[in-house]
């Protein structure tokens, strides 16, 4: 009897151990998990990586943007559950850089030798002094996506070079919005005030926080107020569809053609395609963004310390962010790499997109990336940023005018930082 008990206990213990190990090591193969959000286009690359490394299986966990970043915070806090390789979007990077003791210093695997692959500002975003937190994936250099058919209906030029000349900067954008609305009052000119505002704001080197000492400067920095007034003005005139990117309303608005322009980072093109479907093919076109360049979005691959295969995880991240793979991602999914050698590649520059009327997206985004000036993100950027977005939303809701919305945004941002 007692031996049976002992045997059972041993078996249970062994099973528990097995259960604890099985997700990581099944049949001598190492399983790596990689957690991403939205569309990274990694599926074919992962298959290729597995073929190159027969001893490694890679599982891709994809969740939506918010769930991904909030989940990561919980996983790091509790010390378990994070994937071996985790993508972090640039607006969350300052927050996670503060908790860098939870991440592996990629420099310890020799990541610093790779520095020259990336645009210098991108490399700087993912590092903290000598500590290498993450390897850059894509970037969101900006263009302007517009509806050719709606421009025609409003007697505006439709050729992409002429549109670029018509809208060289944001004041011109607002003026064209007025012209557009006079001709076709039933259609909105922009998707949301927030998109216009963000695109404008990202063109200035500093926004809410000072680069010098990370102090709050939103209320004194003229670029913030200018962007807010212009975007708020468009909203107050009812020229936006009030549809936030990524939401259901935005998808419906794209499908129904409710708005004519959207400042689009490279990664947004595939979302427009998906929301618009075949019915809208050829109606959209891409041209230079007002103000010529800007960056919105772009991620990093990091390796949390809690993983049990950090070296292998780093190898995977390094391979996925290597120029050859980044180039494949651009050609297949239009995801713009943050590596100059790739966006200057002749094949990338020559790339056109049939969905967008054969627009030379490679040339447009590469030019935008070249002119790009990085902007500083404060430690509390992700806390403060939404307050201004919601303020613009209140103008779109018609519950406040521009000045009231501005005053409340500044006051609430200050209260948050207290």
């Amino acid at each position: 009897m007692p031996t049976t008990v002992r045997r059972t206990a041993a078996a249970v213990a062994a099973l528990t151990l097995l259960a604890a190990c099985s997700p990581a090591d099944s049949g001598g193969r190492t399983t790596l998990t990689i957690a991403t959000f939205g569309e990274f286009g990694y599926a074919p690359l992962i298959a290729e990586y597995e073929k190159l490394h027969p001893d490694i299986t890679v599982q891709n966990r994809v969740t939506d943007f918010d769930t991904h970043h909030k989940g990561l915070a919980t996983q790091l806090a509790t010390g378990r559950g994070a994937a071996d390789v985790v993508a972090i979007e640039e607006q969350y990077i300052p927050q996670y850089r503060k908790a860098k003791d939870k991440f592996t210093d990629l420099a310890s695997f020799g990541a610093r030798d790779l520095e020259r692959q990336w645009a210098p500002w991108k490399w700087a975003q993912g590092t903290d002094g000598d500590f290498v937190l993450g390897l850059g994936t894509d970037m969101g250099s900006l263009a302007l996506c517009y509806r050719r058919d709606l421009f025609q209906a409003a007697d505006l030029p439709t050729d992409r070079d002429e549109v670029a000349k018509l809208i060289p900067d944001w004041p011109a954008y607002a003026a064209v919005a007025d012209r557009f609305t006079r001709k076709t009052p039933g259609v909105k000119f922009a998707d949301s005030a927030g998109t216009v505002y963000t695109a404008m704001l990202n063109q200035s080197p500093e926004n809410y926080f000072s680069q010098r000492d990370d102090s709050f400067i939103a209320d004194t920095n003229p670029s913030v107020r200018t962007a807010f007034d212009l975007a708020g003005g468009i909203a107050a005139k009812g020229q936006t569809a009030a549809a936030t990117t990524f939401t259901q309303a935005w998808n419906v608005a794209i499908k129904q053609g409710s708005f004519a322009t959207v400042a689009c980072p490279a990664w947004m093109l595939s979302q427009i395609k998906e929301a618009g479907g075949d019915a809208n093919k050829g109606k959209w076109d891409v041209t230079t963004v007002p103000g010529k360049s800007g960056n919105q979005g772009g991620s990093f691959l990091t390796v949390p310390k809690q993983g049990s295969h950090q070296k292998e995880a780093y190898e995977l991240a390094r391979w996925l962010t290597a120029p050859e793979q980044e180039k494949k991602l651009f050609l297949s999914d239009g995801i713009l790499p943050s590596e100059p050698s790739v966006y200057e590649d002749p094949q990338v520059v020559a790339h056109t997109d049939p969905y967008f009327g054969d627009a030379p997206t490679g040339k447009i985004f590469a030019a935008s990336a070249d002119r790009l000036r990085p902007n500083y993100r404060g430690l509390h950027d992700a806390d403060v940023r939404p307050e201004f977005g919601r303020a613009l939303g209140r103008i779109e809701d018609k519950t406040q005018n521009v000045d009231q919305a501005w005053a409340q945004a500044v006051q609430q941002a200050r209260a948050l930082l207290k």
Partner: protein
Amino acid sequence: MRTRFARFDRKVTPLLLVAPFFGLFAVFGAYPLLYTAWVSLHDWNLLEGGQGRLGLANYGELLADPHFYNALANTVSIFLLAAVPEFLLALGIAALLDRPLRAATWWRTGILLPNVVSVVAIGLVFGQLFSRDYGVVNEVLGWFGIAPVNWQASTWTSHLAVASMVLWRWTGYNALIYLAAMQAVPSDLYEAAELDGASRWRTFWSITVPGIRPAIAFTAVAGTVNGLQLFAEPQLFDAGGSGATGGNDRQFQTLVMYLYEKGFTQFNAGYAAALTWVMFVVCALFALVNYRLVRRFVRAA
């Protein structure tokens, strides 16, 4: 020997039998509760952990926080907008179902259906129904010449919309509980009332409702706790995404949404923990008040 074992058995076995409950309660009930209390006394960042002891400072800050009172008022308002019609409707439906019906089981299962549907699905569907530009509700209002309402934009309209989701989801559930209780009301009381010539209405209020008082008290308490923990419906109703602020001016941010915003958007776990404990007290108070109200109201009837 035998009797001593029997005595031991009689003493210890019952304890052993109930021990699993206390074990589970200690692990999943008491421990998180106490740990939350501990966290609430600290400056606690979700990522970086404890940053030093604060004492009751989190609570002090919370009690001076206008967003907290806004969330509390929203929660109570949505709760009342949903609960009052919910309980009356549930009573009515239960009374209808309590009569001899053809295909009674079909009806009874049918009214529970909304409760079985995933709350996420309900949120998404209602979010579409109440959408400003493409929503069915505005479409129907348009037939009567009413201009489209931006349901998310103002306090009252958003509260009505969220309350309608809660109402839809919980009415059938409550009705089934009332129905079960109604079937246990002794039938001789009804026969006596009929002999006395009481009307159907009078019978309902004087016999049925007092007869199911424990069920009403149960739903009042359970409904209060549920109502004050409202999260998924308003969260999914937020057209601006999932910032957990419940609209651009926090017009339908509930207490749990505020808790989520503090804890998981701003990573301020200490503050969120303090909010949890304040919510615990608020829930207890509301449940007590409701229980008292129900007792008095039903006794008076």
